[in-house]
């Protein structure tokens, strides 16, 4: 069996959720790695979009910023923030790929502060394009580490809307109909959202991870079905591309 890290596994699982011929708005960090990997493997026609204006690049090596020159390398268009965000508001972007510091059972995200807003214990960067992506794209995929400080019943700050307080809440707030969180991918497993209650539920656990591990690292009641499959581990080809082509300097995957 191949040796791999949790980050590499997350990148592989995330890349597999992206279908060929779809569009994805990609945030900084691991989402870039997953999208670049998907483009080199099963989804050569994945339309990768960056908020600063890069549309449809062939990502040569991992960008440091969602606005640097790698984000429009051999792209089909070098546009603007307005152009990209308007496309998302118009319904042309299938997936958003985000990270977060905290998540709640409805997939709402915090990337703004830990503690109070006006006197924060930890000040985080803020929304960036996160709120926009999570508001406007059809399906939001979240990549983050899972523990009780991050998976919380109540967020310190709701930066980016998930399903807010439950079924119908997004639409009542005025957010585009039929949008919302789709998958949460962590070092422990893959989660989705229950159709009826819009609460988070476990879809698969990663190799070597027990159900207890998942429960112990979740600060709220997670829906756990009777049968929980085990995530397919990274394949040799995926790991080779990750390490040698997508991120050879190890700036994301370590």
């Amino acid at each position, binding site marked *: 069996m191949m040796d791999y890290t949790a980050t590499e596994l997350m990148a592989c699982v995330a890349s597999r959720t992206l279908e060929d011929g779809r569009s994805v708005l990609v945030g*900084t*960090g691991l989402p870039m790695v997953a999208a670049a990997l998907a483009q080199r493997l099963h989804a050569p026609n994945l339309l990768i979009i960056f*908020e*600063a*204006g*890069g549309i449809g690049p062939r990502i*040569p*090596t*991992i*960008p*440091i*910023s*969602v*606005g*640097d*020159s790698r*984000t*429009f*390398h051999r792209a089909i268009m*070098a*546009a*603007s*923030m*307005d152009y990209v*965000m308007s496309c998302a*508001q118009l319904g042309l972007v299938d997936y958003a790929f985000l990270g977060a510091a905290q998540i709640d059972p409805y997939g709402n995200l915090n990337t*703004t502060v830990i503690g109070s*807003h006006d*006197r*924060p*214990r*930890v*000040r*985080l*960067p*803020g*929304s*960036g*394009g*996160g*709120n*926009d992506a999570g*508001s*406007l794209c059809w399906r939001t995929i979240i990549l983050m580490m899972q523990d009780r400080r991050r998976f919380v019943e109540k967020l310190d*700050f*709701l*930066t*980016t*809307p998930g399903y807010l307080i439950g079924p119908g809440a*997004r639409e009542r*707030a*005025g*957010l*585009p109909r039929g949008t919302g969180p789709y998958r949460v991918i962590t070092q422990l497993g893959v989660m989705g959202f229950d159709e009826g209650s819009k609460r988070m539920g476990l879809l698969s656990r990663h190799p070597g991870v027990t159900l207890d591990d998942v429960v112990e690292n979740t600060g709220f009641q997670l829906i756990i079905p009777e049968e929980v499959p085990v995530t397919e581990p990274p394949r040799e080809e995926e790991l080779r591309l990750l390490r040698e082509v997508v991120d*050879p*300097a*190890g*700036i*994301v995957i*370590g």
Partner: protein
Amino acid sequence: MRVLEEGRGELLGWLDPDEARRWMAERKSRSPVDKRMTLREAVERFTHDGDYFALGGFGHIRVSMAAIYEMIRRGRRHMAMAAKTAVHDVDILIASGVVDRVECAYSFGHELRGLSPAGRRAVEGGRVKVVAEISNAGFQWRFRAAAMGLPFLPTRVMLGSDTLRYSSAKVVEDPFSGKPLCLLPACYPDFAIIHVHRCDRYGNSQIDGITIEDIDLARAAKRLIITTEEIVDEDLIRMEPERTVIPYYLVDAVCEAPYGSHPGNMPRLYYSDEEHMAEWLKLSRTDEGVKEYLDKYIFSVEDFSQYIELVGGRKKMEYLRRLEMLEEPLRAPWAVRG
């Protein structure tokens, strides 16, 4: 329109549309005049203590570091920044004491490099206040509303979130669909500084690659300083008018600043200088380190060209050019494997 919700964030940079029209009509010259001047003169004339301002580019991409260093050298204070994807720009402006208020879409972070030690220390210690939150599209569309001469722009972002509750936006019921809409107030910064690939002496500017928010920001700003990699002949602009993204009548100053985005990326010309960024991120962990950095790279030199010599001159710039052209592998000292 019925107001359903109002953000509690401070409303910065808003003007009544008729006031904005009057400013533009009276203060923006439609007569082409040679606006070339030194950065020192531009910063002295068009930036003032207490101003609310925005910077073009993307925080560490095509950002006018040359102008930022000059603002620091001139000792500007108590400024509020429209931190629309602000990265290295806001970090060093906070660390040097220029900025003490932030309207925040993205700040206090260095994207893949991690969080910004100096910016975080200032905001967590209370020296810098975040007076409003917003999203990236939020800022883009605040500038767009201003660029269109409108008081606000209706959008579908920020709804249902604390980002909205801490912003200067309002939620109303759309008179057409009946659905809640987020109204983003127009934003006319006191000044903006945009770094471009080339422009002529009047300020007609071309940008290679993505334009981010700059086409709208250029129209929204009450004063606009253009810094440029090179000043070209007007004929070159007129040969390809479709390439002009900022016309001269929006521009107040033109300052030539080769490598002006260093240590940031300038698409097609040079990639970011990760060794220099790593030095900043390391030194800025302490106030003493910040002082050491500012003394070494900003206060010890007269202008930006001396700084470029100090950080490695031609040899370093040639390396960054090859890096940009993918002819060299990236070395990132802040990353695990480097």
